[in-house]
């Protein structure tokens, strides 16, 4: 529904990638952290039911990023049967401004997608504003294509892209070179990932 796309200057926090701790959703104590991050960054309000729906049914797909005990980012997802395919869906992705452009969002998303893949998903999907260059670049690098354009999807009249990632079919699975040594490359990545973003279907 709503995606944040701000470019304003915020005082960045200095940190080494190793200082970021990634944690899988661990229970009720994490919920207020997730809610306050999303509420802070999005103008679209979500009732508490919406959050519970995701984290209760698919706790293994939600991750939080901490820096020195402070929650700085989160990803919330779901997966399930949709017509003939078993597919994952990325519902919310937030990283607070001072921590953006450092690969945190990429890491959060990557972890969730890996779980989806291991759980048997055939594809992953989400929507993003056509103007959200950051999100489009992030997901583009992960192998998502822009499958459809959705006219006036958002209330402010902005169009959306439906992004989809198709996993290779099982026979070709083992031939993928990047799957095995992903973790390190993401942690120590030096290239400039773009702005992080928030999305929700």
């Amino acid at each position, binding site marked *: 529904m709503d995606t944040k796309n701000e470019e304003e200057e915020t005082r960045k926090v200095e940190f080494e990638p190793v200082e970021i701790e990634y944690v899988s959703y661990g229970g009720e104590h994490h919920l207020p952290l997730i809610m306050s991050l999303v509420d802070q960054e999005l103008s679209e309000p979500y*009732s*508490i039911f919406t959050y519970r729906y995701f984290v209760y049914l698919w706790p293994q797909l939600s991750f939080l990023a901490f820096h020195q005990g402070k929650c700085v980012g989160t990803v919330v997802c779901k997966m399930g049967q949709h017509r003939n395919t078993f597919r994952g869906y990325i519902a919310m992705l937030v990283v607070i401004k001072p921590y953006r452009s450092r690969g945190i969002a990429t890491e959060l998303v990557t972890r969730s997608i890996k779980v989806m893949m291991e759980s048997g998903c055939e594809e992953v999907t989400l929507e993003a504003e056509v103007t959200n260059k950051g999100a489009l670049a992030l997901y583009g690098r992960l192998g998502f294509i822009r499958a*459809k354009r959705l006219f006036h999807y958002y209330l402010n009249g902005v169009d959306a892209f439906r992004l989809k990632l198709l996993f290779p079919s099982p026979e070709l699975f083992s031939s993928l070179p990047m799957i095995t040594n992903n973790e390190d490359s993401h942690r120590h990545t030096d290239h400039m990932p773009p702005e992080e973003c928030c999305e929700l279907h």
Partner: protein
Amino acid sequence: MADNGAQEAAVDISVSARASIPFGDNSVWADVSPLLESACKDLRDGDLIHGDNFNLFAAMSALEIMDPKMDSGIVCKYYSVDEAIENGAAPVPISFDKTVDVQRTIDIMDHLLACEATWHKGHSLAQTVFSCIYLLRPDRTSSHALLHSYCRVIRATCKAVISVVSDARTHEEEDLFTMAYGLPLDGDGDEKCLSLLNAVEETTSRQLRACKAQSSRRRVLEDIEPLQTNLDLEEGYCKALLCRLRFRKHFYHVLTSMRRPQGRGLELARKHISSCILELECILKSSEFLRSSACGSCEDVLDDSTTGSGCQPVGFDASLNSRLSAPTPPRAIKILSWKKAIEYFVKLLHDLDILCSYSLDPLLEGVLQFLVQFQKSQPDLVARSHLQLLLLQDGKLYGRDSIFAVITRAAALPEVTKNHNIQKNEYIVQLGQLVINMLKILCTNAAWQRRKLGKMLQDWRVIYVQLELVFRKDFGEVSSIPDDENICVKIFQHILLWVEEQTYWIASRFLILGFELELYSPSEYCMVYWYIYVVLIKLAEKTHLKMATRNDTSKRKAKKKRDSLKDMGREYRIPPAVLFVQCQMFLVEGLTMLLAALANEHMIVQSPSPFNTEQERFIQHFELLQKACVPDHISYPSFKESTAYARFSMPRGLQRRPRVVLPMTLKNWLNSER
């Protein structure tokens, strides 16, 4: 435990008198705060009561009461329209000072224009045009001639526009637009809006003449009360009003003229369109005068003001209709600025003018070209709905030509065949439906259009197969067939060829629209250009075959008439339509090879993605084409094969122009033409 707590709380329920919200007939307000508090104490952190079918949709539809982001009731200033009126939100007259009254009337007219443009652009009628309290209570304005007539024509115009859009309805884009539940669109006497408007225009014209006569010290012939009390401003205000009234009059005429069947009103519509544009220019110019004579404390006019004077209009409240809006909590929307609204209407009028000047080409090829060209300027919903209604009325092209006639012409068959009985064949009928559907889809917004074009491919393949089966079954061998059946054979042959040609045309549009919609990232261009290339090869082939078949037919007839001498020396030229496709074909071939060469020579590097390869992305982008076998025998491996050897530089001894590996049929066909 839970029950006891709740029961105790229930005993304490008291009736609190909230004067501002009235009791209903059979209901009374009761304060349930204590009950809710006890209930809350019975749930632990993380507990949720829900039914089995509480799904995501239910979760997202839920709202937290008194959260202003979700609970629209909390932000309302007034509980109802009546309360707003009682509190003086929409006074009639707007002011007892006639000058102020005129100023405020003009502000209302301007703001309504801005609301109307906002509605056209995709917001609900309830939150835009009908945020005007004067419109919500039609009878209240009857003592105020200007406001009353203007409101009537607005309502009548909205109704006319809704009618066009809902008649053209193809999908959900129109749903929000046409939603008018609970809104007073059918004002009593609104059909006579033009006569009322004319009367008011007449009065204002006389007022203008009177003040001009006065200023030039001529004898005042008009015995008429001036518009307002400040003589210095009389001319300016009369003019400002006149252009606004006239714009509405002409715009209403545009809508009614364009709806006349079979394009009969198009020329008249064009005249009204140019009048509209002239009046809009005047309206824009009047802003300077309005701003300088604005009363009250108007801050510096911001660019996003919704009125020409820069002042806030009286009598609008978008929250009053929040219960009439969509089921989900309505968000506050931003009304377009007055300047942007005028820009919108100018564009709309230009788009409508293009439609009115369209020559109503009987050839499908011409229609398709017109549609593609028209869509390039990204016309909005109202213009596109008019387009669709112009093209298709009563299941006929322009309400005039039967779809079967359109098909036979497109299939390069002689005119006489358009009335042939074969049109009753069930598959021919279905084909007609596919054509109608395709034309409707080509009038929709590009994003929706592309998805539907992709899905359509399957249907066109299927109809081809079905027609081919009928052809084979009924006619088997072509030789030794009596004359009458010969015509049927001819018709089928041509139609089959044309169906293929049309299918490839749809496929090429599907692929090319992807660029317009920014669906491809640069790393995918090579495979997209390649796919367009293989589709265009087929398109050129089918188009050429169809035309060649027609020439064959006419050649045979010529021989019968012993006109063969004339034919003999005639050189065969490739028809322009085919040449055009070939040009595009070579263009995309070049682009494909250029990008492939860049990649092969490592001049553009794509970092591999961690989760999939180029093959998956190929499969995704071209899924619908592959499913429909458009074309057949095309796959990712053939893409890789075709582009594997593209290079910029070759060692002297191995000089060879990089070229795409051509399917055998095309090679032969091209060779036979040279």
